[in-house]
């Protein structure tokens, strides 16, 4: 029997709150985060919907692309009227995957040509956010 590389859906909200240190019920769904998120139109659910999904423990959230499209720009965090750090929630969702070896970027599949064009700063940041 080999290792299972899958994210458990159990106690999703509690685990995300513990990893992030944030309380999802502080959010009253005003939508400021979604309004300010520069990458919201690329996400399959809005930032405010991500936190709603956590409140309701909608486990389909684990398959969303939102956490991977997020650029950690912190526009959401800085504008939330309740002081909820959505960036930390996004990070927690990423870490749930990365700590199960479910990397979002495959270094094996990167070509030398791709790497050649990128400054170190991009690689270090991309690997830190999308590989475990």
């Amino acid at each position, binding site marked *: 029997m080999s290792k299972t590389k899958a994210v458990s859906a159990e106690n999703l909200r509690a685990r995300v709150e513990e990893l992030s240190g944030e309380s999802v019920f502080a959010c009253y769904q005003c939508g400021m985060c979604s309004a300010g998120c520069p990458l919201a139109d690329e996400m399959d659910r809005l930032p405010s919907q991500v936190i709603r999904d956590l409140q309701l423990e909608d486990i389909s959230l684990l398959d969303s692309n939102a956490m991977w499209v997020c650029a950690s720009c912190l526009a959401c965090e800085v504008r939330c009227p309740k002081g909820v750090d959505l960036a930390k929630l996004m990070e927690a969702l990423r870490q749930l995957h990365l700590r199960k070896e479910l990397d979002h970027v495959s*270094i094996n599949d*990167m070509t*030398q040509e791709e*790497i*050649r064009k990128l400054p*170190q700063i991009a*690689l*270090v940041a991309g*690997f*830190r956010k999308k*590989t475990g």
Partner: protein
Amino acid sequence: MSEEKLTQIYIMGKAYDVPTGITIMDAMEYAGYRFIRGAGCRSGFCGACGTVYRKDDDYQLEFALACQEMVEEGMHLTQLPFTPAPRSDYVLGELNPKENVLLQHYPAVARCVSCNTCTKACPQDIEVMDYVQAALRGDLEKVAELSFDCIQCGLCSMRCPADIKHYHVAQMARRLYSVTDSPEPEHLNARMQQMNDGAFDKEMDELMAMSLDGLKQRYAERVIEGKEEAS
């Protein structure tokens, strides 16, 4: 043998009393182990005999070369004869030294978290983390300089949480540096010139034409530099 002249060690969990003051490799052979892999030059140069050990009452792992390290009382050890670290293919002459080719071939270098675990695993006292960082910022000379004593034992790569292949990165750096920036080895160039001019052709032809017995005799009668009056 009296008690004081024995040291108790644990080889893969099993206790053995071995003579005090011998190397781990000698101790393992004394205990009856035969090295089919994981032994090479027995002189601290080939990197084949990477050893991981721990001492009684110590939680930390330590790292050494079996052929160099002496046994100690309460040593718990195991061998790591091989590190499955993939080496990137390249043709030295086709690399562009103006680019960060180290990163292109070994992008995991960008995953270094500066934990220093590699440095702690190195039996050669190399500042491994420092050369990985130098590789990240494209400082070829620094990588070459710091990694000079590397013998490719692989212990660093086995311990790295980022799965970096330190010794492959370093070897690539040293090779590229020698081609691009390091000073010309004049003595080597002179010898190459001699060879290309045919200075050794006659001797080589003689050797190639010799019989096996002739070669054996030539070997037995060879003159060792500094010992010209050997019997």
